[in-house]
Structure formats: structure tokens, C-alpha cells
């Protein structure tokens, strides 16, 4: 019952995104992340060594995932918490609904959680007449708009200030219609006041987790606003929803990964709030939840441990790959059509919803390699996208025309003499025909290219012929 995907319509989505003037106005903000991350990395000489350390920790954990899960579960129960397992989104939703109904919950506050987007929790709660309120400012804004996040750490970054003002005026009808909301501070204050009231009256608080610590049975959230903490401290019940790969062996291991997480995400050395939660409130505690539940979501991750995509399970959801992706910068997050956008989404989406549905996303890459260069966990994203493309081709999911063209090219590529025989005269011919203008406004079989821009006229010699000439000269 996860969120409906429009991933299979990726090409249309991209077309719409490129022609959406408002979106194109907002997208340049994504590039702000690049300088911030670079500055934070430059300020820490040990940054790259920490990336290696973080990667090694996750690889070790994934290779022993069953055993660390057992240890984690034991510690949660010891601390008075409950652990639930969910094979898929439907089971996770059912468990959380069960917890809410047992407490006769009417209002659920939510900290930011991509896993909750993945399982489509809000819609499921609403169907049962339980109000679910997103409390992260960006998530709150997109919930008012009925949209999905367009970025995993900045969910509303495609929305302008003017849009938010209009949304607030539409949603907060009890407030004076002539109030001034022209400054961002005023929007923030209004959201703070509205949500403060929700925090205090919520029955259940649902958060995600950045880490689940096997050593202590602790869940950890990393945030900046403080909404996650109010979500999990004030209601009587705290539910943590997390996917299996959030397991981390020890607190010292968490310390290693924390040092690359904030820097890669927002360029912060440390996010404002890193909160460790272990079980429900203790005897003598004046605040905190009475019940503590952890819902562990598989959704195909356990099967992913076998094969090339296991590396994707190191992902810590920092968003650096999309912040540095030229494709993401051009089309934003919604075009990807499901929960996870950008390069990490291009690899993860086919794993979670199938290659038939999500197989187009791995094609949305120029293979420039920036995502891999900045990934704190050193996930070989371009390679994994290439692996998906191969699978898409093997399973005959590529369009027939593209397959025919690739087959034709492969026929020549496998026969170098024939390839040269075909290509070299063509290039010489094109150079001759195009030499006056230096470019072509139209070329047969290249309409997809020349419809939008000119095709530069070749110089005549091919790379291979020049290489041969050069090597000959050296020899």
C-alpha cells in the first residue's frame, strides 16, 4: 500500500518538470548544498578517512546483520520496549495502526521519516480516521499541499516562500486574514504556534531513525528543528519506524558515521539535535513516553543483501548524491515519481518497487560520477545504475527501437575493421558537408538531438584514426 509511483512515466515527468517555470526557479537552491558540504569537509582533515571508517562499519554490520538484529532486539526488550517486524509496507502499516487503535489514538504527530513515506503511513492513518500531522516544517508544508517530498532532507525545497504563504492562509483559517506573512520568520512563527498545539495534544508520536544501536537497544534521530524530539517526548506512545539496515553495532560506530552524516547533508559538523532513545520512560522520569515500539521494515532489503546492490544498504540518507547531481538539478525530485529521488533513488527505487516500474530511473544519469565522489559511504552509484541498465536490457524492458539501435551498434563495435570502414567515411563526409556552417540544424536519425540544438560538424578524422596516427608518431 505504499505511495503510488509515477516512475514508469519518468520521461513525461521530466518533460513537465523542465517546463515548470516555478520549479525551475526553485531548483538552483539545490546547488547551495555543494559549497556547504565542501567547506565542512575542508574544515576536517580526517573527513576522507572517516568516510572509509564509516563504510567499513556498515559493511561489517551488513555481513552480520542477523546477529546484530538479535542483539539489538534483546536490548530493546530489556529496556522495556517492543520490537515488531514487517516484511513489507502493508505489515508495517498494520502494526502501527494496531498500536494506535490499542490507545484509541485520534491524533498522531510525526517526525520526518522517509520510511514512513515509503510505506504510505499518512494515507493509511487517515483512512482509519486518525489524523496524522507532519511536524518537520518542510514536511508540514508539503502535507498541506498534498504533495510528496522532492528531496530526502529538504522535502519542500521546490516550494517558494509565496507558495507557503498562500498555503498557510488557506489552511490556517482561524487566524486573522489580514495578518502579515511577508517574511520567512513570520511563516516559521505561525507554523511553530500551530504545531506546538498539536505536539501537546497528540496521542502517538511516530519518528524514523538514523541509527538503531545493537550495543544499547537505542534508536537515534538526527534533526535540526526539534520537532522529532517533541514528537517522541510528549505523547504517551513513541513508535520508531526504521528499515533493517539502520542497525549499527555500537555507539562508537555511530560516532564515526555521525561525523560524515551532517557534513555530507547540510554542511553542518553536527546537526542541532542528535537524540538517543532507549525504551519508555523510567521510574522517576517526569516526562517521556509510557510505551516505546520499534517497527523494523524489510521491504526487500534482506534479499538485497545478496548481490551487487547490497552496497546500497550502506546509504545513510544524507542527500549529498542528489545535491550534486546535474539531472536532479535540472528536473528536481518529483520527476523521479516515487519516494526516493536522485542517484540514490535511481538505484533504490527499482529494488523496492521492481525494475519494471522503476527501471527508467537508472537511465537518468550522465555518469558524471559526482554522486560517487561525494557519497560519505562510498557507494558506487554510477556502477549500480549501470548494472540496472544491463538488467533492464536483459529483461527486454528497453523500448524495441532502442534495443534495435543498440544491437546494430554492437554488431559494428564487435567488428573493429567494419566499424572503422563504416565510421571513418561517414565522419569525413559529414565534415565535408558541414564545413561551411560548422554545425547541422537537422540530421537524419538524429531528430531527437537536432530538435533542441544544433549538432556540431565533425572535424573529419575519428578519434581512433587520430590515436593511430599519434601512436605511430610516438613509435
Amino acid at each position, binding site marked *: 500500500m505504499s505511495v503510488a509511483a509515477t516512475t514508469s512515466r519518468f520521461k513525461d515527468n521530466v518533460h513537465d518538470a523542465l517546463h515548470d517555470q516555478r520549479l525551475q526557479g526553485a531548483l538552483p537552491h539545490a546547488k547551495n548544498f555543494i559549497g556547504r558540504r565542501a567547506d565542512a569537509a575542508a574544515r576536517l582533515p*580526517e573527513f576522507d578517512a572517516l568516510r572509509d*571508517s564509516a563504510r567499513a562499519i556498515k559493511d561489517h554490520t551488513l555481513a*552480520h546483520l*542477523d*546477529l546484530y538484529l538479535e542483539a539489538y532486539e534483546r*536490548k530493546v526488550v530489556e*529496556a522495556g520496549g517492543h520490537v515488531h*517486524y514487517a*516484511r513489507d509496507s502493508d*505489515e508495517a502499516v498494520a502494526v502501527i495502526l494496531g498500536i494506535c487503535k490499542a490507545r484509541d489514538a485520534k491524533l498522531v504527530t510525526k517526525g520526518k521519516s522517509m520510511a514512513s513515506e515509503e510505506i504510505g503511513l499518512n494515507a493509511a492513518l487517515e483512512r482509519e480516521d486518525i489524523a496524522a500531522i507532519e*511536524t*518537520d516544517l*518542510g514536511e508540514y508544508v508539503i502535507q498541506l499541499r498534498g504533495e510528496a517530498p522532492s528531496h530526502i532532507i*529538504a*522535502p519542500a*525545497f521546490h516550494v517558494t*516562500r509565496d507558495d507557503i504563504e498562500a498555503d498557510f492562509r488557506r489552511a490556517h483559517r482561524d487566524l486573522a486574514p489580514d495578518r502579515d506573512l511577508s517574511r*520567512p*520568520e513570520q*511563516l*516559521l512563527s505561525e507554523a*511553530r504556534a500551530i504545531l506546538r498545539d498539536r*505536539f*501537546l495534544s497528540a496521542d502517538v508520536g511516530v519518528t524514523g531513525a538514523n541509527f538503531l544501536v545493537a550495543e*544499547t*537497544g537505542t534508536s537515534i534521530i538526527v534533526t*535540526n*528543528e*526539534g520537532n522529532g*524530539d*517533541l514528537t517522541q*517526548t*510528549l505523547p504517551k506512545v513513541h513508535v520508531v519506524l526504521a528499515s*533493517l539496515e539502520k542497525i549499527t*553495532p*555500537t*555507539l*562508537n*560506530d555511530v*560516532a564515526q558515521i555521525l561525523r560524515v552524516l551532517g557534513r555530507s547533508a547540510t554542511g553542518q*559538523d*553536527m546537526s*542541532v*539535535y*542528535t537524540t*538517543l532513545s*532507549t*525504551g*519508555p*520512560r*523510567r521510574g*522517576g*522520569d*517526569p516526562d*517521556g513516553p509510557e510505551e516505546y515500539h520499534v517497527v*523494523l521494515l*524489510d521491504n526487500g532489503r534482506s*534479499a538485497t*543483501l*545478496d548481490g551487487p546492490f547490497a552496497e546500497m544498504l550502506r546509504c545513510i540518507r544524507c542527500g549529498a548524491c542528489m545535491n550534486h547531481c546535474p539531472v536532479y538539478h535540472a528536473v528536481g525530485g518529483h520527476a523521479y515519481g516515487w519516494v526516493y529521488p536522485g542517484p540514490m533513488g535511481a538505484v533504490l527505487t527499482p529494488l523496492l518497487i521492481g525494475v519494471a516500474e522503476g527501471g527508467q530511473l537508472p537511465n537518468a544519469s550522465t555518469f558524471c560520477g559526482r554522486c560517487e565522489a561525494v557519497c560519505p559511504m562510498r557507494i558506487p552509484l554510477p556502477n549500480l545504475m549501470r548494472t540496472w541498465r544491463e538488467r533492464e536490457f536483459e529483461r527486454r524492458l528497453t523500448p524495441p527501437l532502442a534495443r534495435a539501435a543498440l544491437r546494430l551498434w554492437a554488431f559494428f563495435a564487435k567488428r573493429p575493421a567494419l566499424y572503422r570502414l563504416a565510421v571513418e567515411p561517414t565522419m569525413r563526409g559529414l565534415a565535408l558537408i558541414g564545413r561551411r556552417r560548422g554545425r547541422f540544424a537537422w540530421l537524419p536519425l538524429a531528430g531527437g538531438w537536432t530538435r533542441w540544438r544544433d549538432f556540431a560538424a565533425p572535424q573529419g578524422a575519428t578519434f581512433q584514426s587520430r590515436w593511430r596516427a599519434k601512436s605511430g608518431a610516438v613509435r
Partner: protein
Amino acid sequence: MSARDEIFASIRRSLKVGPVDAPRRDAVAARLAQAPVGIIPRRGQGEAAERLATFKSEAERVQATVAEVAAAADVPGEIARYLRENNLPATLRFGDDRRLADMPWPATALEIARGPSEGDDLNAVSAAFAAVAETGTLVLVSGADNPTTLNFLPDNHLVVVFAADVFADVENVFARLKATYGPGALPRTVNFITGPSRSADIEQTLLLGAHGPRRLHIVVVKD
């Protein structure tokens, strides 16, 4: 098969391992018991005075303010000064922490309330369990001494840190937690707080005081 059993079976199938595999179990038990320390940045290291200086500059970098006082008895005066100079009401709430309760509050004109926050307090003071020089981070633990609600509900959070509790890095704080609460055990909530609450969700503009405190003032007791 239950969801739990099926997930464990699926993990083991993928990893091509059985449930009883002594070398794997030993590797996991050893890591959990030893909790090896990884790469520690140099930034937070140094003698006590150096650590304190790093803590202060890192905390100020993330928009916290820091004051130093010579002794615990000077804390109420410093807090009264801070509230006055920022035109904040002379009210304050804190928990049962003896270190705070024993301070000479009657010497100030502050109106003091005790216990957890219900959401209508403007100012709260907490005593930190520890602090981290590397990132200017405060570490607060839950309980009646310093209720967690005080860290998030009031507009202005004032935190008292004793200089001896300023550690180089989070690893040292974890060691201190282990020494205090026992191996593998923690209080219900441990808050690592680095600066006041913030959001950049409106057009990437950094705004302070999203849901948590708008101001974070740290008082370091040097004694």
C-alpha cells in the same frame, strides 16, 4: 512463519550463513563488548584549557552564546544578567538537579518554577551531563534532575556546564555514560544539542527557533 522468522531466514539466505556460526557470533560479541574507537579528529583534543576554548568557539559557530563564571554560586547572577540584557521575562524553570537547586537563586529577582515543562515556559535552565569540545555540543540526560521537556519547549534554554565535564569528543562522553549507567545501558533519553533549533525549509534561508529553543545560552562554571 512469522514475519520475524521469515526476515531472519531471508537475511541468512542472502548472506549464505546458518543461524549457528561460532566465528560470526564471536566477531559480533567481541565488537559489542569492546566497542572499538575509530578515527578521532584532532580538533577537540588537548589539555583542559584548550578543550574549553575549542568548545566555546565551536558552540559560538553554531549560534549559541557562551559565558564563563568562576564558581557555581555565580550562575544565578549570570542568568539574571542574560535575561535582563535580552529583555526576557525574569522567570525560570528547572528540575531536581542538586547542582542547580543549591545555587543562590534568592539573591536574584528571578521567579523560579520547578519540574517538567507543560509548554508555557519562556526560560528553562538545565545542568549538562557533559559537553563535547570537537563540535560545541551539550549532552543532557533525561530524568527528574533535568526533564527532557525543558530542552525543547521553552523559548530560551540556558545550560550550565562544569568545566571538568568538557570532553574532547563524543567517544569520551559515551565512555562516561557507560561508567555512570553501566555497560549497554543508557537513560531513556540522551540529547546531544549543538546550537539553538533551526530550519532552512523556507527557500534555504536559515532561521533559528523552528520548534525548539530560539536561544541557547551556555554558562561554563570554571571551578
